[in-house]
């Protein structure tokens, strides 16, 4: 480059707003739209829910609208159905997550192997995860259908069943049926997560262990499990929270019936808001949901801190 005569820089007048402040303002202006979205659709509504929970607020009885303090919470503590839904939520979350984890782990181990057509199989196996909840619910409602459902038909053909079973309207079986559906849907989530974890483990570790004479089980126990532990904790915790909050599937399949056999706390909240239009009570229930979730998250954060220290 040839030297171009440059006029000596004159000292620029000091800008009205300093560079640092301008940077900050640009940053904040980029954040503004997202912050407004969150404010309007999450933060304000949560505040409103907390306020609503202190009022007697039934949509079709506006004349009864009044402040009742902790009235909704007292009602909640005395509501046998509420305590039942907490227990049902536990069964629903525990059953779903444990089975999803075990089956998802098996699926991840299978999909991690090298074989021809792996990409296609992997994609097909993950498909249930992307499907809308309503669709999942309806597909399985049809599979469970007592007279024309294929599940009864196959079980009878195999000789494991004599009479047709009304899976979703039997108080003893409905919960197992919806949990099984949720497992079908959730296996891909664990498969994806754990597969990503497996792929991050260096292959040399296995080869070295192999040379040292470690068998399949020993390699699994001493390499795979410890190295996957962080991702197992994260995936399980997010899944527990998600399943606890998830209402769509049960709402579509049984609406919490028969006789509240599948009523979990989130569907019960939905029912109070959507069907009974009892917003005050629904808000109190959702505040409780939120508290349960926060307690769980706090416990989870403590646990992961432990994981980091160990790892």
């Amino acid at each position, binding site marked *: 480059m040839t030297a171009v005569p440059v006029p000596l820089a004159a000292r620029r007048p000091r800008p009205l707003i300093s560079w640092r402040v301008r940077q900050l303002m640009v940053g904040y202006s980029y954040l503004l739209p997202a912050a407004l*979205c969150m404010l309007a659709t999450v933060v304000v509504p949560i505040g409103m829910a907390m306020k609503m929970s202190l009022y007697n607020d039934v949509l079709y009885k506006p004349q009864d609208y009044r402040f009742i303090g902790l009235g909704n919470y007292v009602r909640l503590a005395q509501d046998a159905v509420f305590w039942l839904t907490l227990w049902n939520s536990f069964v629903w979350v525990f059953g779903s997550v444990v089975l999803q984890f075990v089956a998802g782990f098996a699926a991840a181990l299978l999909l991690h*192997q090298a074989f021809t057509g792996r990409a296609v199989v992997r994609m097909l196996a993950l*498909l249930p995860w992307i499907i*809308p909840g309503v669709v999942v619910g309806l597909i399985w409602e049809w599979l469970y259908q007592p007279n*024309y459902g294929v599940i009864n038909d196959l079980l009878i053909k195999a000789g494991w069943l004599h009479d047709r079973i009304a899976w979703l309207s039997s108080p003893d079986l409905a919960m197992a049926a919806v949990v099984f559906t949720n497992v079908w849907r959730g296996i891909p989530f664990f498969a994806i997560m754990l597969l990503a974890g497996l792929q991050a483990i260096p292959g040399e570790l296995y080869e070295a262990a192999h040379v040292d004479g470690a068998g*399949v089980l020993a390699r699994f126990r001493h390499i795979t499990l410890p190295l996957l532990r962080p991702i197992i904790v994260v995936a399980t915790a997010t899944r527990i929270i998600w399943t606890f909050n998830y209402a769509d599937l049960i709402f579509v399949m049984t609406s919490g019936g028969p006789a509240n056999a599948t009523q979990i706390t*989130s569907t019960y909240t939905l029912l109070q808001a959507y069907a009974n239009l009892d917003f005050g009570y629904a808000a109190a229930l959702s505040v409780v949901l939120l508290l349960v979730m926060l307690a769980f998250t706090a416990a989870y954060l403590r646990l992961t801190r432990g994981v980091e220290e160990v790892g």
Partner: protein
Amino acid sequence: MMRRRAPADLADRLLRGPVLWSGLATLTAFALGPFIWMLLTSLKSREELYATPLQYLPQHPTFENYVDAWTSPVTPFSRFFLNSLWVCSVTMVATTAVSVLAGYAIARFRFAGRDALLLIFLATQMFPSVLLIAPLLTQWRALGLIDTYQALIYSNFSFTVPFTVWMMVGYFSSIPRDLEESAMIDGCNHFSALCRVVLPLAAPGIAATAIFAFVVSWSELLFAISFTTETDMRTLSAGLLYMVGQYEVQWGPLSAGVIMSTVPVAVLFVFLQRHLIHGLTAGAVKG
């Protein structure tokens, strides 16, 4: 390569052979079986559908269920489909625009409350959406937005924005700063550096995130049933549920509706699964 290894033991050979193949076959059959059954159902005529004993394969495959569902005046599936397409597309575009800006700001600017903000975006992903129904319904009623697309689109932000911002922060942090800095030395301001340098580099990730916003909005049910009352305003998820609510369940048209609702997201998933999976697992693997 194989020769350098110690000889495989029996368990190893079994695991790589029969166990692997039977496991894969079970997995695929379990994942796909229910879809295939629904597809077969949708191709059966009414007589075949309710035949005893059960008829597994349609003898005379017919598309009448699809035509029925699509054109029915009582449950206008074509209308549901267009509603979903519109709500999800607008949600996708708006969410992406908002979260690109926010993600960039969080990844590049240091400011007070940055960590708190990130934590809020993370925490809101864990909130139950049933929590929002009563307050949002009150809010939309007060604003006269019941039975409008706006109400559904705004409500969708509550779950799309936190997630997409979170993903964007990850993408932008992985792009080296030097590139924009040199662009800014060359005379770009922040915004044009973002548009000309950063966005092209982050494009694949942004596209995947956008599609993800589309797919999760496509599945949304609770807001759609709570904030609409007219049949014509229902989205696919709400419309399918509405089809069930009509007198007796018509499994023929319903199964056709189920298949039609599944196909768009399945196609998107096929094209984008690699990106999506990468985006979803990146944070978890790192942590």
